């Protein structure tokens, strides 16, 4: 008998806010966090815009922490402290407490800084913290140490699906009996000339440089690629039993997960969306629900010409005619694409949408692509019905990773 998993704490730092309350308010208002990158290196970059964290995590953590941690680790720590405090800092046997925090690319900023130091000043001046700053399990380790997790510390790596995969793995740790409480989510902070150039080389980025807040426009005919974002999202998951015993406030219920792979192309989505559709189906099945229970989807919706259509095809493939009854949104229109952090912050948005019965609008959706056959929230928040409802969060990653998560209202 698998144990029910509930959500008792949420934390985030994003391009639109330094915490959950400010971020949620901003996305409900349709506010974009995308702006021009204020650095000389953007001059010869095709894409000169990004969603930079609204609050610099290096100014929030302790000075010594800022020195020792990569920017993505700092963001994860900020989000963890918020989530952990909201959960009421559960008193849990450390051997029953886990941490699962993902990143898509690891501590790339720290690596690049260290490489500059290596070239300028030689090997003797490389920081002894460099290795732990760049390792992809670093954010998980930092968060694990913060809360004192001894049941296991893990970092799932599946590019832009990483954050969602982390949440699914954390839930499995609880369902399978390894842990009672798991802090989970994802983080990313890799806005650097090397990544901007690399994604631009793939022709994946929007180059709407003259109008940053309009650049990320999922489902709109004028979309021309994703906009890089940075930040972190963290959720505290607990077994329902453990949460009830300590009288915790339940913010939402974890339903289930579906994880598949495309087997199609290293970076392009399968145009038929077969892997994504199977992931959605498995997630609903894992949650013990039926298609009709789904009222809302926080879509992956990165604002790439191909990806948005493939996801639309996948959703319709999985939900059939019920698709018409589901309110879809693309919050990357406001936050940009947080890569390994995306699945985590969007899981939080999904939980909040179910709690507040409000779906944030997709910003910049003016001229909807006729190939998108979804009911997309735009212009203003959309309300969700009362009673027991459920929603999906989709996350897909370069490499052909498909992760769908189901959440239920508390």
């Amino acid at each position: 008998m698998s144990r029910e998993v509930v959500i008792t704490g949420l934390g985030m730092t994003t391009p639109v806010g330094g915490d959950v309350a400010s971020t949620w308010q901003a996305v409900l208002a349709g506010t974009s966090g995308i702006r021009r990158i204020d650095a000389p290196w953007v001059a010869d970059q095709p894409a000169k815009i990004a969603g930079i964290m609204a609050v610099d995590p290096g100014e929030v953590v302790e000075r010594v922490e800022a020195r020792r941690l990569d920017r993505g680790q700092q963001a994860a720590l900020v989000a963890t402290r918020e989530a952990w405090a909201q959960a009421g800092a559960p008193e849990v046997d450390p051997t029953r407490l886990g941490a699962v925090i993902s990143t898509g690319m690891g501590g790339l900023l720290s690596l690049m800084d260290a490489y500059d130091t290596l070239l300028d000043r030689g090997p003797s001046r490389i920081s002894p913290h460099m290795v732990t700053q760049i390792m992809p399990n670093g954010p998980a380790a930092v968060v694990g140490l913060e809360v004192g997790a001894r049941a296991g510390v893990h970092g799932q790596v599946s590019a832009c699906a990483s954050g969602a995969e982390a949440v699914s793995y954390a839930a499995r740790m609880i369902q399978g009996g390894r842990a009672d409480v798991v802090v989970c989510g994802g983080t990313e902070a890799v806005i650097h000339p090397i990544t901007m150039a690399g994604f631009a080389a793939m022709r994946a980025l929007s180059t709407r440089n003259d109008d940053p807040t309009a650049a990320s426009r999922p489902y709109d005919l004028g979309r021309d690629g994703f906009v890089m974002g940075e930040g972190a999202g963290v959720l505290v998951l607990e077994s329902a039993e453990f949460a009830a015993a300590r009288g915790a406030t339940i913010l939402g219920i974890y339903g289930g997960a579906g994880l598949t792979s495309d087997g199609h192309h290293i970076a392009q989505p399968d145009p038929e969306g077969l892997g994504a559709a199977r992931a959605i189906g498995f997630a609903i099945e894992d949650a013990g629900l039926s298609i009709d229970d789904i009222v809302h989807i926080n879509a992956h919706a990165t604002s790439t010409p191909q990806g948005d259509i493939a996801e639309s095809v996948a959703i319709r493939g999985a939900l059939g005619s019920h698709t018409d009854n589901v309110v879809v949104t693309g919050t990357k229109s406001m936050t940009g694409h947080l890569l390994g952090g995306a699945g985590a912050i969007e899981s939080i948005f999904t939980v909040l949408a179910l709690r507040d019965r409000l779906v944030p609008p997709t910003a910049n959706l003016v001229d909807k692509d006729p190939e998108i056959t979804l009911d997309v929230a735009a212009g203003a928040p959309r309300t969700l019905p009362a009673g027991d409802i459920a929603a999906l969060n989709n996350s897909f990653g370069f490499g052909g990773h498909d992760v769908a998560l189901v959440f239920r209202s508390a």
Partner: protein
Amino acid sequence: MSQEILDGLAVIVNEVAGVPVEDVQSDKSFVDDLDIDSLSMVEVVMAAEDKWGVKIPDSEVKNLKTVGDAVAYIAANQ
């Protein structure tokens, strides 16, 4: 001279590990009193080398148990 080095070292230890400047005294042990781990010690050594133009080889670092040991080494070798 030594006081100047002590003061400078206190600033470095504070920067690296967040130890209050006034706690960094000659008789304090880096490990036992100031909670400086081996990674932070590497940072302290690097910063001291840069500040005073000395070379502190690893073989010497293990002999620098107290802040006073480090001050004396720097004073003698700069």
